[in-house]
């Protein structure tokens, strides 16, 4: 009975279940009392309802999500720049025609292109893969807060929504080198 390997299985299972139950109870009570408490059930899959876009759990004050229809309307304007937040490999498989690429994970390597090519007064639309992809929200935040672009939006639904709307796509690389 000295080593764990010698202890009976029933005892181990019983103790484990009791410990899990006690921990669950404490966690639930603390979440009621804590100032950092979160909703019991979060909104993880971004979706639409009658009021428009349902914000995802990782939505923050200052984020601006736009619908695919709004993005298409903005696409007609010369002032709008679309920026793809995905990896180069994914970008090269297909992206919004005319979009620049700034992979969120390789930010430092690419931000120079954006600084050079995107004027301050541009309307930027960041996007990534699909509706529960959050890279574009993070990218939009950085462009707004760190780079000081005043008008940055995030396309809800990402590239998948763009494809569904039969909008123009390209597989060309936007930079010279």
């Amino acid at each position, binding site marked *: 009975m000295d*080593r764990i390997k010698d202890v009976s299985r029933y005892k181990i299972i019983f103790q484990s279940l009791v410990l899990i139950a006690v921990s669950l109870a404490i966690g639930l009570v*603390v*979440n009621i009392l804590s100032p950092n408490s979160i909703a019991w059930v979060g909104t993880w899959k971004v979706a639409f309802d009658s009021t428009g876009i349902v914000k995802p759990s990782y939505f923050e004050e200052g984020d601006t999500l736009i619908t695919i229809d709004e993005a298409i309307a903005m696409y007609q304007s010369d002032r709008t720049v679309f920026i793809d937040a995905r990896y180069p*490999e994914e970008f090269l498989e297909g992206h919004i025609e005319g979009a620049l690429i700034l992979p969120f994970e390789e930010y430092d390597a690419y931000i120079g292109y954006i600084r050079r090519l995107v004027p301050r007064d541009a309307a930027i639309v960041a996007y990534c893969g699909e509706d529960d992809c959050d890279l574009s929200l993070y990218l939009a935040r950085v462009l707004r807060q760190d780079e000081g672009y005043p008008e940055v939006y995030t396309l809800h639904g990402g590239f998948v929504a763009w494809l569904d709307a039969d909008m123009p796509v390209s597989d060309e690389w936007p930079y010279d080198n």
Partner: protein
Amino acid sequence: MKDTLKILAFIVRVALGIIFIVASFDKIMHPAEFAKIIHNYRLMPGFLINLLAITLPWIELICGILLTLGLFREGAFSVITALIIIFIIAVGINVVRGVNLDCGCFTVSEHARGSAMLVLLRDFGLLAMAIFVYFFDSISTGLDRFRKKSLAT
């Protein structure tokens, strides 16, 4: 030799417990961020993510404390070992299917795969510690020793 193993197993058991205690702090303080991390693994149905984020850190904390103290050792040990195995499976699935755990996005990047492999390596290290404790930790190095005595009298 036996005593050396016993002392070594005691140290490993305490270290394993402390690792889980420390790991739980940040998650308890920031449940919203932890929920985001669980979301990034893309394994849980949406309605379970927040509940898991609220409760899992407490399982880690309580079992970590008890394992460190050697109190209800078998239960605490089993829960922690089960968690390590679940972590390994969760990360392993995502390494295979190419999900970048930093952002929860599907990717074909080798860079992201590398960071997931490091997490996997760390979890296998924890599993090795647990296996060592399973075979060599003695009840005499924990508080269960007193519990056993009081039960016997």
